């Protein structure tokens, strides 16, 4: 008797069969992502931030401090300066005696909201224009390619500041300005992929079955460019969050007294010598969010395109 059971070829085959489940590329990518501890950790941080944003009123309720309430007595020192973190104001107060913790929670709504909405808009515009340019070619491609060149050669921040200051700051204009300038890279990526894909047989097959251009583009080609689009999207969110915060920092975010991280840091910059918490906590919130999104993006990239890892070789 052996401790090791003899496995016949037939049995082995059966076992293998029972083990193998058909997994599409997305299921495989998801499995790889789940195995990536850094990516899952950063996903947890992102989810936490989303929860903080969603449940911002709970923070106001627990502390009893509405986000825009100014506590001139309790929240400011006798000299009228911000108060350091204490049992009433856990993360201290700002220059007007408002609770920084509650304002950070409300600020998460703006940063994440703008981050997601502007990114989605960018992706939709970029993907559609990239598909059109790559697939239709010719005149359409020429116009879109020149448009991409134009957008990429405009000094973004300067023109963004100009646009926002002309139209007056608002959430809508922030989202529009950001999307207006960031679709170009997305369109370039998609166009490149489509140029390569449209020569493949499945496109020819679809065409011989009588599919229209529109159908081929959105039903046959689009799913094949989703991988780079998803990777780029995840990495775009933190960039958009930084741009939004930058506009707010320059005074072009939401009109006061709305709580928004970039705006808070901007108000804090005159107090950095006397009230470190006023600068530190909103900056940390911003930094933790962008780092988490970037780590998650890296994880998604590695999961969707595991090629990089195989290239790493010991030297």
């Amino acid at each position, binding site marked *: 008797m052996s401790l090791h059971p003899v496995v016949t070829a037939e049995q082995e085959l059966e076992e293998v069969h029972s083990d193998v489940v058909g997994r599409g590329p997305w299921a495989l990518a998801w499995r790889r992502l789940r195995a990536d501890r850094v990516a899952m950790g950063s996903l947890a941080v992102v989810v936490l931030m989303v929860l903080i944003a969603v449940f911002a009123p709970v923070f106001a309720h627990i502390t009893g401090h509405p986000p825009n309430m100014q506590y001139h007595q309790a929240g400011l020192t006798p000299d009228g300066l911000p108060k350091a973190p204490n049992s009433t104001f856990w993360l201290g107060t700002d220059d007007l005696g408002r609770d920084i913790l509650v304002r950070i929670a409300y600020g998460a709504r703006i940063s994440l909201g703008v981050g997601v909405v502007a990114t989605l808009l960018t992706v939709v515009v970029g993907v559609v224009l990239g598909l059109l340019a790559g697939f239709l070619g010719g005149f359409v491609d020429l116009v879109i390619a020149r448009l991409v060149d134009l957008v990429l050669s405009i*000094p973004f*921040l300067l023109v963004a500041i100009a646009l926002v200051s002309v139209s007056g700051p608002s959430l809508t204009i922030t989202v529009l300005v950001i999307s207006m300038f960031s679709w170009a890279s997305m369109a370039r990526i998609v166009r490149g992929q489509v140029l390569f894909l449209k020569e493949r047989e499945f496109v020819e097959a679809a065409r011989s079955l009588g599919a229209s251009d529109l159908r081929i583009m959105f039903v046959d080609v689009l799913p094949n460019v989703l991988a780079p689009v998803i990777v780029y999207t995840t990495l775009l969110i933190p960039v958009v969050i930084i741009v939004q915060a930058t506009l707010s920092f320059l005074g072009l975010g939401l009109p006061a007294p709305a709580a928004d991280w970039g705006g808070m840091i901007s108000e804090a910059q005159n107090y950095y010598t006397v009230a470190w918490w006023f600068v530190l906590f909103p900056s940390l919130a911003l930094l933790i969010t962008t780092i988490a999104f970037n780590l998650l993006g890296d994880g998604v990239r590695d999961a969707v395109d595991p090629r990089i890892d195989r290239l790493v070789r010991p030297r």
Partner: protein
Amino acid sequence: MARFLVVRTLTGLFVLWLITIAVFVLFFVAPSNVARTLAGHQATPQTIALINHRLGLDRPLWQQYLDFVGNALHGNLGYDYYHQEPVTTIIRQAFPITLSLAVGAAIIWLLLGVYNGVVSATHPRSVRDRALTVTSLVFYSMPSFVLGLGALYFLYYKLTLAGYAWFPAGGYVPLSAGVGPWVQHLVLPWLTIALVSAATYTRLSRASMLDVLGEDYIRTAEAKGLGQRRVTYRHALRSALTPVVTQFGIDLGQLVGGVVITEQIFSLPGLGKTAVTAITQQDLPVIIGIVLVASTAVVIANILVDLCYAYLDPRVRLT
């Protein structure tokens, strides 16, 4: 080569022309209250009309635009609305500041970023690689104003309190006043821009070096018995630099706009700060002038990048 330069210059000029139209339309769609700001609240409608007439704001838009283009072709970008100073003079004063800032920062971030990327890629998964990857991710995720304020707090405020007044809080000293003070005033702004950007380059050059190091010709070079250093820097780095150069072209162009934050934090009166002031005052000639200069920088940077491609990869033909 000559044909390439001519074609690219012409397309560049075309893009610049589109930008002037865009900026012009943009600012005339918005209600202008320049005349009211100049004349004060007590001004009669007649005074305002007079000021509008003197600034040429009462003429039709297309005529104003034609005048602007005509003058611009003669090297005259107009006069600012508030002090009647020539825009070219304003730009000439601000330009050296932004140039010092941009060039210094670009050199630092390029060297730092590419070197770190190469070190990471040649020692993958080592402690150094991981440390550099984490550090660059943090800086990559950091908004430049957060880094700038951090630099001010620790390197200016804390150090000065501790008795080491090495770094000033801001301001600009021209190069003609001595290299020492010039560098001293620019170190913190340089680092603020460079550290954030270097992170992108570390990530980029690490990935592209890893790709290249897996190629057959690298194995050939190693098999020939070439030294590790020579293989890394002469053979691999050269072709790994292509995506880095692409990114550098984009960044160099965006830098003119990107310095806005740094100039604001360290009170450097460069193009960025001037532009922000002009935008808040709706000082159209100054805005157009600066946007034009900035866009020209982008166009030139892109042409230089294409020239670099041809140098780095002889297969690239300039047509």
